[in-house]
């Protein structure tokens, strides 16, 4: 005769797990225990609950969802300090990259050299600092699209030196103060 077990909470599953360690549904019950635990501990779906869950229930496999949900909520705030705290305390490989990129994008207002330097000073552990350092080193160089005698375009600096060799049939300027966006 088939026997049915109905669980209503992580506590009831926990009792079952302790009582029937040899049960054929032990592993299924264990997974269910974690699911219940996650739902119970994050029932308000608040930032505080997700933060607490990530710290106190780090062994629960559903920390994956807690981290994703916490990051989504923190992202909506668009507050640099909150994102930075998230990176330092809660982010794993799952969200770290996106969190850093978000922090970078909301920190950049004018996108000038001073701002880039300030960002690196403020967040020295920024994982893409090599890209920023390159941007900083290039920010003083203005490049102009120029056509040579063979009707090929390249880029020269303000001293007239070729910085990008003339191999193109057409070229637009690196217009200072503008960025390109693909729709």
């Amino acid at each position: 005769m088939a026997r049915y077990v109905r669980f209503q909470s992580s506590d009831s599953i926990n009792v079952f797990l302790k009582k029937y360690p040899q049960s054929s549904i032990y592993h299924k019950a264990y997974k269910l225990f974690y699911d219940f635990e996650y739902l119970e501990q994050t029932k308000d779906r608040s930032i505080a609950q997700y933060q607490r869950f990530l710290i106190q229930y780090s062994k629960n496999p559903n920390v994956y969802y807690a981290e994703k949900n916490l990051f989504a909520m923190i992202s909506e705030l668009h507050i640099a300090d909150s994102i930075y705290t998230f990176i330092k305390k809660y982010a794993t490989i799952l969200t770290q990259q996106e969190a850093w990129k978000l922090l970078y994008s909301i920190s950049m207002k004018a996108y000038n050299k001073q701002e880039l330097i300030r960002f690196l000073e403020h967040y020295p552990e920024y994982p893409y600092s090599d890209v920023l350092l390159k941007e900083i080193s290039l920010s003083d160089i203005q490049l102009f699209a120029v056509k040579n005698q063979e009707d090929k375009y390249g880029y020269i600096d303000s001293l007239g030196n070729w910085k990008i060799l003339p191999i193109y049939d057409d070229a637009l300027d690196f217009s200072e103060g503008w960025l390109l966006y693909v729709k």
Partner: protein
Amino acid sequence: MIVVFILIKKGKRLPIIILMGRKIYEWVAIVKRKSLYYLINRSGQIISEGYQDMTTE
């Protein structure tokens, strides 16, 4: 496929270039070579695939 590159004044929008869903954090220019358009960065490296057609807004 026509790819539209929109020029955005810095400070007005996020300083991010989204290239077919990929975010690129550097300044770029559009160049044309052998009938294909590309994005290059200020080091002269081509950072996109070639596109047959292109327009700017």
